[in-house]
Every structure is written in C-alpha cells, then in structure tokens.
C-alpha cells in the first residue's frame, strides 16, 4: 500500500489546521453559512436531513486494518456506531457534529486518510478495481496509476473550480468491475502490439440526469504521457464546459455536444502544448509509487485444496470467492447486504472484526467495492473456513455476491437532502421477497440498483434492473428500467413504463424475474435474455 511521505503528511496536517480555524470562525459567527458552505464541502462535510454528513475518501478503495479500525473508532466516538460505504468506494458518517469535524479530520490524518475533495467541483477520489493486485485476469496492478492521479489531482490549482465535479476510474483487466465507462474519464491499462504498456482513454461517461457511456477518445496513450494527456483532457473541459447551466456542466455534455472526434482533436491540440511543460513525472517517481504496491509475500506452498464438507460454507465459497492470481489463494467478498439490512452499512464492531481478519489473513489489506461491499484480497485458501466462521458469527457471511439481493442503494430520502424518495426500504423489501438463497441462485447474476433521485448515486442507470425514486405530487413513486450495465458491456438502462408505488415496484421486479426465468436460454443472465427478447414480454407481464 502507498504510505504518505513527508509532503503528504505536511499537506494534510496543514489542511486540518486550516479547517479547524474555518470551523471556529463559523461557530463564532465570523463566517456566514453562505461563506462557510463551500469551505466545508471542500472537506467533505455536508449538511443532510438529520445532521452533518462526513464523507471520507478511500483512495481507489484500498485500506489497511489500521485505517478501518480508525473508521470504527470514528463511528463509535463521533457518530452513532456505524458507517455507510458508498458507490464511489468512500465511507460516509451520518451523524456528525460540526464542532467535532476538525478532530475527525485530525484522527484521519493520523492513519493517512482524509476527506479532501470528496465534494465540490473538483477531481474526486479516483476509483479502481476492487480486486486490483490480486485478480487473475489483470494485466498489471492499476493502483500505482490511480495513486499517481491522486497526487496529481489533489489541490491541483487549475482544477479546483471545474464547471462540475469530475470522476476518474482506472482498471487493468478486460472485465470491468469499476463501471469505468460511466466515469468522466475512464482509463483501461492495455498493451499495444509491441507489448508496451499504455492506456485506452474514454471520456464523457456518467450517470445522473443525462446518463452516457464514455466514448473512446484515444486508442493507445503511452504510459509516460499519462499525466500530461489527462491534463489536456481537463483543460479542454475547463475551458469549454457549460458553466452557465449546472445541469449541462458535466464533461459528458461537452463531449456529446461537440462530438467525441472533435473533443479528441482539441485534446490532441492542447496536449501538443501541455506535454512540453514537463508535467509527466520521471520514471523514477512512478517507480517510487509502484514499489509500494508490490505483491504481498504470499505462501507459494499454500494448498489449493479446500474441504467443502460444510454445506453452508460451500455455498459461500461458490458465491463470494473469486480466483486469485496466486495458487492456493483466493479473493473474498464480504457482503454488506444481509437480507433486510441496509446496503453498505457496517457497524463499528463489524469494522473491527473485518480489520482483524484483514490483518491476520489478508496481508493487512482490504478493499471497498463500488457495489458497497468489502473485500479481503489476499487470502490463503486454507484460512477460508476460519474466516467464514468469524464472518458468519457477525452477520457478514451472506452468500449473495452479484445476486438479486446484492443491491446497490443510495441513502435516499432516509438520509439525503437531495433525495425525492427512499431507496433503502425498497432494497430491503426486494431482498426479503427473494430471501430464498436457492431462488436467488437459480435466478443467477442480476444487478439491481436503486437511486432516490435523478443524481443516480445508486447507479440505477447501470442496473440490469434499475429503480429510480421520484416525487409524484408529494408521494414516493418508483420508475423501473431494464438493460443497464456498468461492466465491460456498458449500457444505459431504459425506462419500461409508468412508475409504481413502493410495494408495486417490488411486485413488478418479481414479475420481471419470473418472465426472465420463463424465457431464458441455458446460461443466459437476466441481462442477456432482456437484450435478446427486448422489452415487450417483460412489459406485458408487468402491465398486463
């Protein structure tokens, strides 16, 4: 894992002092809320429905046990005993008092974390593949490149006041586990025909009010020019992004309006200048970062065999374990989606337990996924049964990865000031309707995603089944959409028809699933069947 150097420590410490003074000035009345709001947002502090909400970045989703324990401590000391992992690999605390926010920031700094740039019109936390460094199918570990982006984008003077927020994802495998093409910039690490490392660069994706899959802007960018090219991408956006209309201010609108080819041409033109400025770090600097992501010392003699005699353990292994690149090892997904629970919520006690397991069995590493689960990336198979027993005792062994109850849901109207409808109760009811694991596994992979407003934090546009909560004359109403995907076959879901009540949408989802089960060909997922047969059979089943 990357460790802060003196510069990182000094930078964050200075921000803690600055933020402490800003909070004191707000509490004393020296600052009005209008003056203070942009300052607190720059540090990830929102005012939500019930209290202040504090959003903390987990860079590219990677954490150590020490860091997770610190989050557990914050949950206990400053919040109400739990935190909420988000679709951008961050964590949010929902019950923060303003006077405590600087102390929390100082606590975070002590474990090399912070909340800087988790809000505002700047470059946000760079996200990545939760299996990075462990996945059997990856070309290289994408996190050193994501870390390079973190260092480049943090406090970038030119990009601190962009037309709108800006999100980047970096992956290094053909399977996209990070919804890469639904980001403002998506980067896929590839090799060209000569075997040289470089990047495919996609620009102009996103969800929200106007969902778009990012088009390819550059087929192959040499690795040495990573930073200067992204600088050019941002410069063109910063110059021409629609500052006059916040609903059209994301880069996806610019790219769509002028066309991907024209945007790419302008980037190339800008890049011709930018790459002469010496922005690309020397290879030694990248190596300094990369060496900190060296693979952990895995046991080369670790046995591949696994005793699957316990049937419950076997189901969990089948569902929540994926292949590791090293023999005798596995990647474990810890589901934060117990049936009837709140997707992404994790208690302080659960965090401490997971931190202990990461320290003892996963080389002190864990990950946050954009699907709001946690991952132990480097586990010897011989330890799986012990881990499963510990997780099971803590309610953390739900074997539902990528099944219909593994629902992404934003906080919705239960917590969020922007929301129009509640997301969590809908997720709970759907999970309960499909609580039979046998039924879920028969249905197979089905990614269901729920947002409580058009901002789409719950990724409903990318759901095989997506649900959007809206306000219909003061009542909660839910629009259903099918056919979205955040994976390598990225697509935007289409609304199927008139909306439903809370219970009505649960019934509609069940009818959709039953229709799929009746129509599917062998091996087809819900998404495959929908793409093959189209909307009509589903519509007939749901609306009659």
């Amino acid at each position: 894992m990357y460790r802060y150097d003196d510069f990182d420590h000094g930078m964050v410490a200075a921000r803690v002092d600055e933020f402490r003074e800003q909070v004191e000035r707000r509490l004393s009345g020296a600052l009005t809320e209008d003056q203070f709001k942009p300052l607190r947002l720059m540090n990830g502090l929102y005012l939500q429905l019930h209290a202040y909400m504090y959003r903390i970045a987990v860079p590219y989703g990677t954490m150590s046990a020490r860091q997770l324990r610190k989050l557990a401590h914050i949950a206990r000391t400053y919040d109400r005993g739990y935190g909420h992992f988000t679709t951008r690999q961050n964590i949010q605390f929902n019950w923060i008092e303003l006077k405590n926010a600087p102390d929390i920031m100082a606590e975070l700094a002590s474990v090399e974390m912070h909340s800087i740039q988790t809000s505002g019109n700047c470059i946000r936390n760079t996200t990545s593949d939760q299996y990075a460094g462990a996945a059997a199918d990856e070309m290289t570990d994408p996190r050193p490149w994501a870390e390079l982006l973190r260092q480049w984008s943090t406090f970038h003077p030119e990009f601190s006041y962009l037309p709108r927020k800006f999100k980047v994802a970096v992956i290094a495998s053909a399977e996209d586990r990070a919804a890469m093409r639904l980001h403002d910039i998506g980067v896929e690490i590839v090799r060209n025909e000569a075997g040289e490392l470089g990047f495919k660069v996609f620009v102009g994706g996103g969800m929200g009010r106007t969902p778009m899959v990012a088009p390819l802007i550059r087929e192959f960018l040499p690795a040495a020019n990573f930073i200067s090219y992204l600088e050019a991408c941002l410069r063109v956006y910063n110059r021409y992004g629609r500052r006059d209309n916040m609903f059209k201010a994301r880069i996806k609108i610019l790219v769509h309006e002028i066309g991907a080819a024209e945007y790419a041409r302008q980037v190339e033109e800008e890049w011709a200048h930018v790459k002469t400025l010496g922005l690309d770090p020397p290879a030694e600097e990248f190596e300094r970062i990369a060496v900190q992501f060296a693979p952990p010392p895995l046991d080369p003699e670790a046995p591949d065999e696994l005793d699957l005699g316990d049937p419950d353990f076997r189901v969990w292994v089948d569902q929540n374990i994926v292949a590791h690149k090293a023999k005798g090892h596995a990647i474990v997904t810890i589901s934060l989606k117990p049936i009837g629970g709140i997707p992404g919520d994790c208690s302080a006690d659960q965090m401490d337990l997971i931190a202990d397991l990461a320290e003892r069995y996963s080389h002190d590493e864990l990950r946050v996924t954009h699907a709001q689960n946690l991952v132990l990336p480097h586990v010897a198979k011989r330890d799986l049964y012990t881990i499963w027993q510990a997780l099971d005792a803590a309610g953390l062994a739900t074997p539902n990865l990528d099944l219909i109850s593994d629902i992404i849901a934003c906080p919705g109207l239960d917590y969020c000031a922007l929301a129009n409808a509640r997301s969590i109760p809908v997720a709970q009811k759907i999970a309960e309707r499909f609580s039979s694991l046998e039924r879920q596994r028969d249905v197979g992979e089905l990614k269901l995603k729920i947002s409580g407003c058009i901002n789409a934090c719950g990724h409903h546009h990318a759901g095989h089944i997506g649900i959007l909560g809206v306000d219909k004359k003061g009542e909660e109403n839910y629009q259903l959409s099918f056919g979205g995907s955040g994976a390598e076959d990225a697509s935007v879901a289409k609304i199927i028809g008139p909306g439903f009540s809370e219970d009505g949408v649960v019934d509609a989802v069940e009818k959709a699933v039953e229709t799929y089960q009746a129509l599917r060909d062998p091996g087809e997922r819900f998404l495959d069947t929908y793409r093959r047969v189209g909307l009509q059979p589903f519509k007939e089943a749901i609306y009659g």
Partner: protein
Amino acid sequence: MRILTGNDLVTGQVTWWTGEGWSLHVDEATDVADKADAILAVEQAARRVNGAYAIDATREGGHVRPDHIKDRIRAIGPTVRPDLALAPADPADRDWVI
C-alpha cells in the same frame, strides 16, 4: 399552518421554531403565519439555526404533521433505523411519517 425548521448549527440536529426558541420536537412547532422571513433573518443571524426554511404543516389533535414526506422523515429520523429515531421506537408513533 406555516412552521419553521432548520438544523442546529453546532450539532446539525433537526429543530423546529416554537415561538421562543428551537425545539427538537415537531409537536412544539408554532404557526408563524406570514412572519417566516423576519424570524428566519433574526435567528440565522444569531446562529441559533442553520439552513432554516418555512414549510406547510397540519395540526392534528395535539400533533403537528409536516405536509411533505421529507420533513416528516426529518421530524423523526431515518425510517429504516427506528432505533435512532427521536421518538420512542413504537411503530404506531411512526405511522404518520409515510
């Protein structure tokens, strides 16, 4: 009736204007009629409330019920965490929220 609500500056807790100060309990909210703007200007300047605004509500028996679901949820707490609700975790007390 028109009532005022906001968040406490220091704690962020949801508060309701009682006519004399700010209460955590929506039932203590008072009808401000057409005086909302004047009260809000004074109270926000005095830092006794943050992000305050006026909403429509209805008095039912001894209770005040905000008309919009968002403010009804604000009055009690997240519907999915009754253990964190301001009121006792009695489901009957929460029936009016949704």
